[in-house]
């Protein structure tokens, strides 16, 4: 930028050190933020345990790191500018620079290319993969949201008592509804709601997808290995929205088959679902 070179001045040392220190602290905080992927909290969106969530984490990192770099550059440049060009006694009125057209065309086009190239293009194949129809051999499950619990229907398991497909037992707000899935196998979920909008969020497997009355929203997910994964409703659905919890229990094929057999026979069903932790009801709104 030709208008600047002539009037470069160095910042005063002491305040420069102070600001550099603050800047460094911000940097450390940011790096710490970047590392939260390593922590093992139940709904950590950056600690994937399934294929869908892993794709999502990778794409997020692809966007977040350049964003962090840009942020550090911009914030740093603002601080340097404030120090370097702070008004001092006997400052002359600066030259009235009105702009620099090539420079500005450049900083319109270059970011467009970068952002499309680095973020837009890599996004598309993942988007189409996550958005495809579930494979024909995927394990089907119908998920229904209702105020204030989730229920799961297994078309492939026949309830011995009713002859109908097996359904998960009702739970009360604050207790998680259990969804059993075979690990390592693609699951085909069909989401709907019988009342208001809900959103089925299980971050470590697949993020969230909405359950809307009148819609049948299909998507797929897959758990890498057996384990138990927490989630909850993400869309405000009323007074007990806070307590519409989910636990996805992924089991090896043998364990899953064994569970399905017992559940179909009507044994070992937990009527209240699993209590993930003591969520105390805070007053009553209903």
């Amino acid at each position, binding site marked *: *930028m030709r208008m600047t070179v002539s009037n470069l001045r160095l910042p005063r040392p002491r305040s420069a050190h102070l600001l550099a220190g603050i800047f460094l602290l911000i940097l450390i*905080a940011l790096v710490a*933020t970047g590392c939260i992927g390593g*922590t093992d*909290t139940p*709904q*950590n*969106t950056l600690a994937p345990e399934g294929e*869908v969530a892993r794709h*999502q*984490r990778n794409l*997020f990192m*692809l*966007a977040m790191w350049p*964003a962090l770099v840009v*942020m550090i550059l911009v914030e740093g*440049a*603002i601080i340097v*500018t*404030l120090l370097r*060009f702070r*008004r001092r006694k006997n400052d002359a*009125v*600066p*030259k*009235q*620079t*009105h*702009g*620099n057209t090539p*420079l500005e065309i450049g900083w319109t086009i270059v*970011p467009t290319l970068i*952002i499309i190239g680095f*973020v*837009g293009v890599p*996004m598309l194949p993942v*988007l*189409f993969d996550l958005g495809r129809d579930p494979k024909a051999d995927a394990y089907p499950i119908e998920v229904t949201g209702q105020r204030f619990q989730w229920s799961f229907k297994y078309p492939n398991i026949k309830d011995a008592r009713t002859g109908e497909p097996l359904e998960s037992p009702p739970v009360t707000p604050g207790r998680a509804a259990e969804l059993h899935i075979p690990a390592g196998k693609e699951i085909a979920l069909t989401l709907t709601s019988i*009342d*208001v*909008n809900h*959103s089925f969020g299980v971050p470590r497997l*697949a*993020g969230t997808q909405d359950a*809307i*009355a*009148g*819609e049948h929203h299909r998507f797929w997910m897959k758990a890498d290995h057996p384990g138990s994964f*927490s989630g*909850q409703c*993400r*869309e405000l659905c*009323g007074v007990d*929205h806070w307590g519409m919890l989910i636990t996805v229990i992924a089991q090896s094929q043998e364990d899953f088959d064994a569970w399905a057999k017992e559940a179909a026979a009507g044994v070992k069903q937990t009527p209240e679902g699993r209590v*993930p932790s003591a969520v105390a009801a*805070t*007053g*009553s*709104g*209903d």
Partner: protein
Amino acid sequence: MATEWPQTRRTGLADALRGAREMADQHYGIWSWIAPVDHKRIGVMYGVTAFIFFLAGGIEALLLRTQLIVPNAGVLNHDQYNRILTMHGTTMVFLVIMPLSAAFFNLMTPLMIGARDVAFPRLNAFSYWVFLAGGIFLNASFFTKDIFSGELGAPDCGWTCYSTLSSKAFSPGHGVDFWALGVQILGIASLASGFNFIVTILNMRAPGMTLFRMPLFVWMTLVTSFLIIFAMPVIAVALFELIFDRLFNANFFNPDKGGNPLLWQHMFWLFGHPEVYILILPAMGIVSEILPTFSRKPLFGYPFVVFSGIAIGFMSWGVWVHHMYTTGLGTVANSAFGISTILIGVPTGVKVLNWMATMWGGSLSLKAPMMFAVGFVAMFTIGGLSGVTHSVVPSDYQQQDTYYVVAHFHYVLFGGAIFALFAGFYYWLPKFTGKLLDDRLGQIHFWLMLIGFNLTFFPMHISGLLGMPRRISTYSEGQGWDIWNMLSTIGAFTIATSILIFMINVIYSLRRGEAAGYDPWDGRTLEWTIPSPPPHYNFEKIPVVHARDPFWHEKYTEDEQGRPIPVVAGAANGHPDEAHEEHGGGHGIHMPSPSYFPLIAALGFPIMATGLIYDYALVAVGAAVLFVGIYGWALEPATEGEEA
């Protein structure tokens, strides 16, 4: 002219009203506040009212944050939480940021374009009264249940009020009725003011002020006004459908009868995304005035900043689906809107780079207005970047409806809009009070607010990435969210403290602030050429504009090397050919007469809305009041003098 009164036929009520109008015309007494037409008076009324709503919305925010300070807290019950949450969002969007922007449109637009008032002064008053009526109506919902036993009657559907949660079946009571009708009323106010400012800016610029000599703030007012007149009808239709569903059992959004709840989301966000830019473009305009003034340099790349603002205005219509990525619209829709959302970051980025280039090489005075403006650039950038990260569709499936989104839009709307609006307060308030705000208190306010803001909202990125859903009234321990929520709550109270300091500053400076004079900041635009506070006619003589930054060019010229040098004292005032013209102290300047009919007309709307909820007979009463207001308004003489 306007103050000559016929001394005959003065009797009874008409006499009293005429007397009152006379008082209002002379700018004293209560009537001058009831029948205002002066854009500056209306601007102050907008600002004060919106600030009071800001305090209400802030207290709501503190209640929410207090409930979330630790897991399983019992400060609010779930029902109260959802209602206060809804009112916090609705208040901050419709009753704070929009009207605070409107306050600056009112205060500054005529002054910056060298006009004596807006094009339609009484319509302007009407906008204000309708806004006030809508705001009070919306908040009246709190009292539709037994508030003293802790039952709030406010809406509980979130500020987005998604269908089918907003239906009578799932939100019984009158809260959502008040919400839908209240927002509808506020839309009328916005529409009226949108048209008013478009006409004002296009038609009332001083001679020589071409579009490309307009101050950036005026440009952004123009773009925002166009967005308002196109966006408000969209939400109006959606709200009418919601009102019909609730009051008359229509089925627009009822899936059981062939309606579609997703239709609401499409219409809401088709309005809602332009709305985001309605909230932020005025802020960008304010900052684009302050940075050049305090850098003593013109805005870098004026045409790029103007065109990027216009580009944002157009593109804002093509990104609404990014609020709906997870609703299952399909991969093609999601890809298209994903790309358009990524691209809308570009014009915003251009603006940030231009602002930085404006400061680079300048002589930066770091007074409070400048600090807030720089704070805007710094914080808004973070909000913009986090916005780019969740424009990426698959990765947004993770962040949708988590605190990451809450962090993002607060960086844009608080770190962006609110910081810029405070910058505007510190910059322009002295023009209207005649007193400078205290700079040391201003600096304390700034630093406390900056720290409090980041302490509140930066941790929300992390709690969001750790999967914490937004809008939950409580959460269990063991999720890794505890510490981040604790920090957010501490930050919220830090912000509250900084707002208290601002209020102390305003009161202190009104009583014993330093006199501002004409031009306290070495300003560049026309508002600094007139006294503080300005006379009610603004400009004794309508200025003739010869350049962008007209006042700067009156004060500075350039030497042979192109370096600016001050014009010799005395030569700055007026041009030689104007010197002989008479100065009449404002006498003989034709100004519109005050009118209380806009107030009467505005009162009709809340009466009609109340009638729709409780008793249809009141609808007729409200319509009659509206009719009387408009009828009297239409037949009112433009100035009293012409009546005789």
